[in-house]
């Protein structure tokens, strides 16, 4: 064991970002990243594209294989079976032992299984890890029908994956609208329509009752809450994910749903930290933020922040800025900035515009003083910096709406919707915000407005 070495368990975005930033701040500390999933860091969000044939596994690696050696970051490919926090050692399945001075737990998530009857049958799986992808490849060979359960982002990804292989999909969603525990009604309807446009049999307000297997232990059908039996050879369980902390149960590490941490990602044990999906904040890191943050971007921020604390004298607490997230539902891109809950009450007011195609929509929320709280964008790319600033500074509604041309991030020559949106806004609010004009020279230069 060396004088000061940092061991990071998990090579997802959180662990890898942490390692990179530690190395940036300190050229000498020995860093080891341990993983049993893949030898190198890959982008989890890109797994779907491998299945769809858009990319191969190697394309999903954000850094070339020689990056790690160049940056003196050691990669250890192996399965940790136990951690002895008292001797500060990781015990590997193959008998190897690795000591650490400081340990960063970044073990990510695992798909939720709610104890459905038949959830362990062959052909039933979630999609989170690289191994899940390999299983899905195997489980969907020559099948006639697939059923997905749970209306979240992974569900819609799996639907798109299966559709790309021309496998008919039935999609069971417990809620009345697609992802409507996150999306307001109109947006949920928009996404639902688009999913159906891709010939996915979307069944809202329908729950999974039972997965039925054949004598060989292979899935052959599902039974829904309506009593309907749907024949299928594959079931994707996509009802969310939860922290992957099986390794720490029955250890001295304090856990709840995730590994409990303070705002500096410190666990109850000395020299042990947790970041990313597997960490659960004892106190939410900010207003409108959750105790467990399970998106790519927050994983990255956790990594950045902990790396700072592990290498700098002056420690900082994790202080996320304005919330943002993005996703893609088949062909429709979604971005969100600030806080947009699925429903709200007076005095919060909203402005919603949807294009005629039913595939483009913007939603804004304003507080009682008319300051912007957040926005959702569908099929219309928006500039992150613009809304980060507008929301942070609490811009008034008219100012935000009047400057949307500056926020527009659609490709050049993209169809313009601004005038339609302004007409609706001016009509609803009795305002007369003009369409910003650009001179001929500005247009000719293609200058960013």
């Amino acid at each position, binding site marked *: 064991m060396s004088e000061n070495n940092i061991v990071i368990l998990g090579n997802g975005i959180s662990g890898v970002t942490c390692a990179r930033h530690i190395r940036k701040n300190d050229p000498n500390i020995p860093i080891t990243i341990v993983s049993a999933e893949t030898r190198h860091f890959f982008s989890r969000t890109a797994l779907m594209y491998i299945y769809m044939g858009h990319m191969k596994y190697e394309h999903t690696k954000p850094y070339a294989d020689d990056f790690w050696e160049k940056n003196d970051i050691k990669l250890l490919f192996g399965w940790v079976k136990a951690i002895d926090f008292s001797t500060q050692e990781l015990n590997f399945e193959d008998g190897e032992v690795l000591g650490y001075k400081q340990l960063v737990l970044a073990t990510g998530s695992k798909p939720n299984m709610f104890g459905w009857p038949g959830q362990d049958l062959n052909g039933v799986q979630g999609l989170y890890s690289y191994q899940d992808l390999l299983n899905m490849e195997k489980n969907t060979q020559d099948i006639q029908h697939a059923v997905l359960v749970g209306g979240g982002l992974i569900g819609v990804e799996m639907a798109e994956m299966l559709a790309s292989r021309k496998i008919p999909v039935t999609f069971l969603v417990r809620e009345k609208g697609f992802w409507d525990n996150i999306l307001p009604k109109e947006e949920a309807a928009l996404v639902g329509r688009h999913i159906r446009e891709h010939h996915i049999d979307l069944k809202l307000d329908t729950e999974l009752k039972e997965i039925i297997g054949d004598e060989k232990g292979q899935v052959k059908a599902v039974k829904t809450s309506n009593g309907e039996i749907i024949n299928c050879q594959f079931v994707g369980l996509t009802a969310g994910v939860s922290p992957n902390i099986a390794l720490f149960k029955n250890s001295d590490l304090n856990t709840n749903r995730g590994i409990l941490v303070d705002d500096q990602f410190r666990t109850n044990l000395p020299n042990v930290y947790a970041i990313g999906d597997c960490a659960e904040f004892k106190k939410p890191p900010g207003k409108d933020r959750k105790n467990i943050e399970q998106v790519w971007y927050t994983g990255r*921020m956790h990594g*950045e922040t902990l790396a700072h604390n592990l290498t700098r004298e002056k420690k900082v607490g994790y202080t996320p*800025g304005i919330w943002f997230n993005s996703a893609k539902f088949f*062909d429709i891109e979604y971005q969100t900035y600030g806080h947009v809950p699925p429903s709200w009450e007076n005095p919060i007011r909203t402005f919603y515009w949807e294009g005629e195609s039913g595939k483009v929509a913007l939603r804004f929320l304003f507080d009682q003083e008319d300051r912007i709280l957040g926005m959702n964008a569908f099929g219309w790319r928006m500039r992150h*910096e613009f809304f980060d600033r507008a929301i942070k500074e609490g811009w008034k509604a008219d100012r935000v709406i009047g400057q949307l041309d500056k926020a527009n991030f659609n490709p050049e*020559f993209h169809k313009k919707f601004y005038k339609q949106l302004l007409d609706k806004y001016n009509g609803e609010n009795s305002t007369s915000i003009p369409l910003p004009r650009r001179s001929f020279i500005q247009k000719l230069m293609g200058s960013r407005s």
Partner: protein
Amino acid sequence: MKLLQNLGLVLFIIGLLVFTGIPFSGSYQLDRKMVLDHTKEMHQDAMVEVLEPMYENTYASNFSFIKDFNDLFNAYNEGLKEEQAWDKVIWDDYAFPLTKAASNGPVEDAPLLFLALSIGLAVMGGLLYAIPLYRNKPAGIKHDGIYFSSMKARGWLGIITGTYLIVFYIILYWYPEYLTNLVIMVDPLSILLSGGPASQWFLYGLIYTLAILVMGVRMFRKYKGNNYQTIRTASVMFFQLAFAFLIPEILVLFNMPWHDFKNIWPLDYSFFYEYRIEGMVSSGALGMFMLIWGIILIVIGVPAFTYFYGKRWYCSWVCGCGGLAETVGDPYRQLSDKSLKAWQVERYLVHGVLVLAVVMTAVTITNYFMEFGLLEQATNQFHSLYGFAIGSAFAGVIGTGFYPFMGNRVWCRFGCPLAAYLGLVQRFKSRFRITTNGGQCISCGNCSTYCEMGIDVRWYAQRGQNIVRSSCVGCGVCSAVCPRGVLKLENGQEAGRINDMPIIIGNESIKVKS
């Protein structure tokens, strides 16, 4: 629809087979008059005598005809060389015109029929295949199954296609006499446009243009809903058809030099060659315009347009090589090498070719002003070396033949001296950049995978950095395939074009000066 598309594929393959078979058809018979008609006066006596033994024979194939011709012709030249009679050695290439003249057979009798059965069927088949693509599907880029495709992921179909293209280019550049039947087939079209018979270059230009047009239609289908791609594709289709194909032929009809007004030195490496300059200078006002326009493009056009729009204004909107790469080559864009090593090789090679082109042109011009004194020999050697190695082997054989192996921009990336020149301007003095949208990148890799120039776009995007690279041709596909709306091609102020974000937007924990 599927039926129509399959029919299209069948027609295309039949057309391609007929095209490939045509050179092997017909018989060949040479006579004295043909030799007189197709040789320079100074060579007529010698050639008529040398080829005497061929007049009696009817050759069943071009192989036996060309073999006999070469045997006789080379024996004559070798003899002269042994005698050191250098001034009598014939350096001109008579194999092509004499094979063409000697050809008899079905193609010569009915050229238009064969044109319809070969190129005509291929074009029709291509359109039948392309037009119904993605019909009744929502707009959005469909890259489904590309890496399972034999054609697009270096499978056996890709290897066959690449090999076919490489062989075609080798024959076209160095053994055109084997293609004479195909050239005869397009003679009527050439006469219609330029008033004269076709050369192998007319044949090539015709196929090239049609390929861009048909595959351009495929682009419209594939990228429907993305106006940048649609307009850009329409632009390269227009410039190829009008500027590279029709206008030059029509100029010839009016006794002007063949001239492509959108081609720019040093891609157009022969622009300052003596015969080109003489041709322009002796062609009146229009000729002078060609010369002045060409120079204006080099010294003002390239830097000014590139300053405002980046090199994309040329490379992916106007250029013929770019036009082929962006249409015919689009299915292969993901095969470009993204490694750091490839980037290093690219920089040495492309700038090396630029230096070579500049030096060669400098020698040419010096030679011109020295009135063909000291440098005559050096100039000629330089020209033939550059023409062989860069103009033919690199740009043609490797540039296009390697599409299915190394992606569609091999020439543009590693070899094009004009791209190098445009790239220098783009890198150091331009308003163009690809903006990265704050912290929205998820490192998925679609942008890098589909970058035809082999730029590791993700490397920048995941750091929140804008992409400013000399090689970027601004095709816009990285932006189009990004699932999270992270990339946007923009022209804007130079300030902040190159940025650095040590801590990406959205995390306020750490204050750093950027």
